[in-house]
């Protein structure tokens, strides 16, 4: 019998007596007998912690893809960045981990101030004046951004570049079934979005583009800005926060909404979650901002204090009229990001971005020298990651390289589906490999990877 309950048998008896009840079952008198579960749950009996820990450690050991075992060249929205012990230690403080949403500011200044600092840094990364206290992940941030744009313009047509991560577009399509948005996915040509010539289903309320896009390409955001001006659409940029260390911000390009995946800011790969949805926008959209927002104010004695504000946007107050339904968000990852960005500082973030770009250049040049390997995105400039056309099916390559100790990258077909999508053709999807190189990859690792890659394509 293993559990975490303080009640001694004697106390249970006393408490039941105090309630005038004969048994614990009597507590459930209001549950119709016909509904009560006879014989209990068909689950194994409880097991002591050490047994369960052994068991789960066994499952962990059954994941050869672990970055500790395969050198990671996979990206596509999830990156193997340095997370130093100091960040893990601080983000692991029990006060941050075991508190609820800061509903009582008098005893929640720790989380509130950390979020205020996070919002400041997130806004600076986006080049916009406002950022919220987090959303679930990059995909949900995209959805919320689109909803904001549609609400702001009153137009439900949404132009989305196929350069935005296929999974994010998939999530957008899923939720569009509820909101009824018309999602028009503009195809990529050599890694650049080919925007619609004319407005078929009405002119767009939102135009969304990735920066860099999911194939690592830098698109012409000036053109997107012009399109938005022409159509009076809200410009939404899905930007990578680390690349922001070397790239112009969405804000500088004229975006009104910048969303992104915050995982690269201190969160481990975590098999995809919990991650961090980044959301920043222009002043004029503040009342449509989804999710929580922390603001500075003063307490009864005039001391600086923080509190969640503009709550009137939120579901618990506005209910069906809320700007979003989000309640629980990813606060702990936001706090972690604040700590990680505090650790990196001005110089550190640029340095990480620069090192990623260097590794990407170094690795890409070498791989493009291998027989039958060519770029999928022509000569479009790339940072952060790059897509290759491989002579053998990418899936086979990944498999062969895993045996050599490398997670070679992502198979495009795994992202787009076998048939490909607006970003790549079916054939490109099958022979497309997305490779990412972070600041953690050494020249030695990259050289070994290239050698193994060479062997794998010839094999």
């Amino acid at each position: 019998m293993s559990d975490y309950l303080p009640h001694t048998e004697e106390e249970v008896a006393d408490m039941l007596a105090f309630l005038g009840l004969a048994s614990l079952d009597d507590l459930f008198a209001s549950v119709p007998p016909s509904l009560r579960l006879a014989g209990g749950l068909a689950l194994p009996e409880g097991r002591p912690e050490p047994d369960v820990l052994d068991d789960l450690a066994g499952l962990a050991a059954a994941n050869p893809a672990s970055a500790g075992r395969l050198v990671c060249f996979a990206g596509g929205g999830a990156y193997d960045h340095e997370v130093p012990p100091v960040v893990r230690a601080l983000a692991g403080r029990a006060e941050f981990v075991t508190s609820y949403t800061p509903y009582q500011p008098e005893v929640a200044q720790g989380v509130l101030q950390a979020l205020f600092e996070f919002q400041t840094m997130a806004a600076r990364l986006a080049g916009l004046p406002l950022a919220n206290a987090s959303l679930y992940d990059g995909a949900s941030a995209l959805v919320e951004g689109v909803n904001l744009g549609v609400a702001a313009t009153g137009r439900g047509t949404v132009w989305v570049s196929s350069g935005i991560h296929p999974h994010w577009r998939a999530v957008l399509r899923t939720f569009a079934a509820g909101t009824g948005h018309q999602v028009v996915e503009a195809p990529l040509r050599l890694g650049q979005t080919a925007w619609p010539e004319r407005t078929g289903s009405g002119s767009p309320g939102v135009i969304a583009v990735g920066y860099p896009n999911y194939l690592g390409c830098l698109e012409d955001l000036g053109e997107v800005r012009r399109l938005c001006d022409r159509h009076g659409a809200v410009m939404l940029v899905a930007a990578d926060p680390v690349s922001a260390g070397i790239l112009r911000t969405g804000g500088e390009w004229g975006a009104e909404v910048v969303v992104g995946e915050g995982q690269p800011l201190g969160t481990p790969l975590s098999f995809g979650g919990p991650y961090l949805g980044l959301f920043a926008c222009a002043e004029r959209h503040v009342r449509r901002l989804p999710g929580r927002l922390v603001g500075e104010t003063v307490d009864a004695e005039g001391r600086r204090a923080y509190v969640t504000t503009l709550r009137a946007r939120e579901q618990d107050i506005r209910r069906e009229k809320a700007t979003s339904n989000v309640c629980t968000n990813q606060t702990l990852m936001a706090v972690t990001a604040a700590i990680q960005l505090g650790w990196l500082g001005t110089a550190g973030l640029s340095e990480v971005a620069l090192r990623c770009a260097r590794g990407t250049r170094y690795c890409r040049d070498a791989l493009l020298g291998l027989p039958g390997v060519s770029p999928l995105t022509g000569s479009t400039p790339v940072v952060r990651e790059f897509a290759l056309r491989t002579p053998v099916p990418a899936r086979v390559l990944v498999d062969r390289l895993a045996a050599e100790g490398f997670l070679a990258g992502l198979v495009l077909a795994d992202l787009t589906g076998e048939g490909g999508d607006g970003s790549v053709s079916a054939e490109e999807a099958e022979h497309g490999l997305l490779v990412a190189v972070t600041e953690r990859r050494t020249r030695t690792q990259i050289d070994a990877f290239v050698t193994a890659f060479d062997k794998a394509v010839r094999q």
Partner: protein
Amino acid sequence: MSSPDDGARRAPLFAEDPGGGVAASAPLVGDAAEPTLFELSRPGRRSWQLRTTDVPAWGIDDLVPEAHRRTSPVPLAEVSERDLVGHFTRLSHRQFAVDLGAYPLGSCTMKYNPKVCDTVAALPGLADVHPGAPGWLTQGWLELLVRLEEALCEITGMAAATLQPAAGAAGELTGLLLMRAWHDAHGERRTRVVIPDSAHGTNPASVTLGGFEVTTVPSNERGCVDMEALRSVLDRDVAGIMLTNPNTLGLFEEEIEEMADAVHRAGGLLYYDGANLNAILGVVRPGDMGFDIVHLNLHKTFATPHGGGGPGAGPVAVSARLAEFLPGPRPVRLREDGAAEEDGAAEDGARVAAEARADRAGEARGGHARYGWAMPPRSIGRVHGWHGNALVLARALCYIEVNGGDGLRRVAERAVLNANWLRARLAGVYDIPFDRPCMHEVVLAASTLRKRSGVRAIDVAKRLLEEGFHSPTVYFPLIVDEALMIEPTETESLQTLEALARAMERIAGEAAGGEVGTAPRTTPVRRVDEARAARQLVATFDARR
């Protein structure tokens, strides 16, 4: 020797207060404010250290075309590791948390979360796995997810589930889109979803995002959905109803069978908001009550610490007839031939076929893959960028396996026992709007108190902070005047309950205006000016000046 008489011969270096890491804000030593990281910052300071890579050190000009190149670095705080640690450690001392004391925040199930789950979530083989890695290299993760899904289905009495939703609200929206898909598939255009007036705010908000209109039904004097009112709104436009049972008043909807029957007869579906599942674990299952769709809040019932507001996880479980619509890809057991095992939803989709191929390819080295991914045939699509909040899911499985079927039932029993004990203990001290045995939480009210002495629910909440307890949820559910919603959870001891009761008795006895009105006084800050925060919005450090 030099003595003060020599007088200070040098002027101090700083004009104004220098900031810079003084610990004065550690509550341990007073309540001075903690400067922001930006105020601690000094140009040129650093904490970061990066691995030596020996990759050619091309300059930014060689790497980024001018048009895209940023001209100056992103301005961030520049602090030493020492100041980084001091700052966030001091901030942690300004934060209440379950690990510091009781947190009877109604509807939030702030139970103690076993530390073993932290260890699980930190296991290298789980925490450092890339979500895009092929299935044959992530069999451990896939098995973990499948095992969790199966456990959750047993606990809810449903047939299949998706683990993708990142929180309860995401689960709700997913569930509503499943409703929509179901009706579409049956050629129906239903426009309304019914929710009781006691429902949590995320319910109506999700209904709207699901493309439906909200129809609210009132609660009756027993605090349950009014059957008559419900029947009167049920028609062919109703896609379904969203309920949480026990409801937000902590009361079990006794007529749930009749409701299910009525809704189903009207062709609607029943959605179960699992936020209150803690009350009925192993006692009664949503599926057995007639629900078609269920979301769970793993961060409530299944012991994921709440992280100051997240992350959570909101898996959605459904009955067999809805399984084929579930989001995907879903983790599934694979048959020998690499196809997914049937469970109503996991027919071979493109993804699983593909995976299976990859897995066979991998078998040479990876051995036969027993788990893979499958896209349900009529899936509504993805609702998360990857597979959901995986590490939260791992915690939940750990918690479920340690407790086991027997332990989970004990959890519910003790949670309900604690709430009822407190209810009886405080009867006569606060109002009890619905004077019936409750489930995992009890809603009290300060209405009489307010009439008598002007003390409001919010005052009680703030005074409790001084007494060392986190406040209950106040003014929710909306249908209760001066509501104090108390959820002690099963992990608090009888002694803690008694201490809480005594504190609440004391407070009820205090005169208005005085103590109560000005509380809290011992916290790092006093009551904050919320109006000003909204009026003069300062949401970033840059907006300060």
